[in-house]
């Protein structure tokens, strides 16, 4: 799992994840994701290149979303694959971890 952090729009952060969000991937993203989420900015997690997700990965996304919300921001997931989307929906999280399919949609979601 690789994690890259960059700017997104005027006041957000983009977290790009590549690889498996499994037990090993969750360990890799733990500290950098928590740091970004605690920064009082909205966060777009680019999931385009995440090819596997397990509940431990979901746990880190939920914890990050909670931290972002405490700072009045939003966390959205950008373009997860169909298989990863199915896991998120099956977990009942599509309302709490909104899924967007384009950068424009992400910008609109963060403005709400």
């Amino acid at each position, binding site marked *: 799992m690789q994690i890259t952090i960059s700017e997104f729009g005027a006041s957000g952060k983009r977290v790009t994840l590549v690889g*498996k969000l*499994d*037990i*090993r991937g969750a*360990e890799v993203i733990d500290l950098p994701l928590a740091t970004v989420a605690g920064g009082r900015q909205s966060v777009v997690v680019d999931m385009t290149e995440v090819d*596997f997700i*397990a*509940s*431990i990965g*979901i*746990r880190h996304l*939920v*914890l990050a*979303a*909670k931290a972002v*919300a405490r700072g009045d921001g939003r966390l959205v997931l950008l373009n997860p694959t169909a*298989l990863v989307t199915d*896991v998120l929906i*099956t*977990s*009942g*999280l599509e*309302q*709490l971890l909104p899924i967007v399919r384009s950068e424009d949609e992400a910008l609109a979601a963060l403005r709400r």
Partner: protein
Amino acid sequence: MPRYDAELCAEEVAFDQAETRVFGVSRDDVAAIDDWLELIGTRWDVDKRTMFGARLCIAELAANTLEHGIAISGEDHTIVTVRRRSFGVELEYLDSRAPFDPTARPAPLRDGTLESADARGRGLSLIHAYADKLTYSHDGTYNRIGLIIRSA
């Protein structure tokens, strides 16, 4: 044997592939199990969705053993067997930790708001959602969990 029956038998033989491997109980082992299953799925040319479900179920079982299984000894281990079937993939997951039955359906999570959402506790629900068949027994040494993931 009539030709039609012979062809059916040949198909079953072609699908009757199986591999078994023993792993420890650690974070590295949980990751190694998934690396191994991913490789098998590619080698056997199992469709992605079926193998994804198989990998997810085993990843959740292995993580559950690691995080919640009560250790019996320092030699605790897991044994994973994967079989390719004409209907999909059949798996058997054995772990030597204290008896635990994952077939009991977990209570639904109450995720009304982000604030109240529980970050944990989704693993068993995912297993129940992705496994078409889930069985459990304890043979005195191992928790034996059987799973079937059917191809769409």
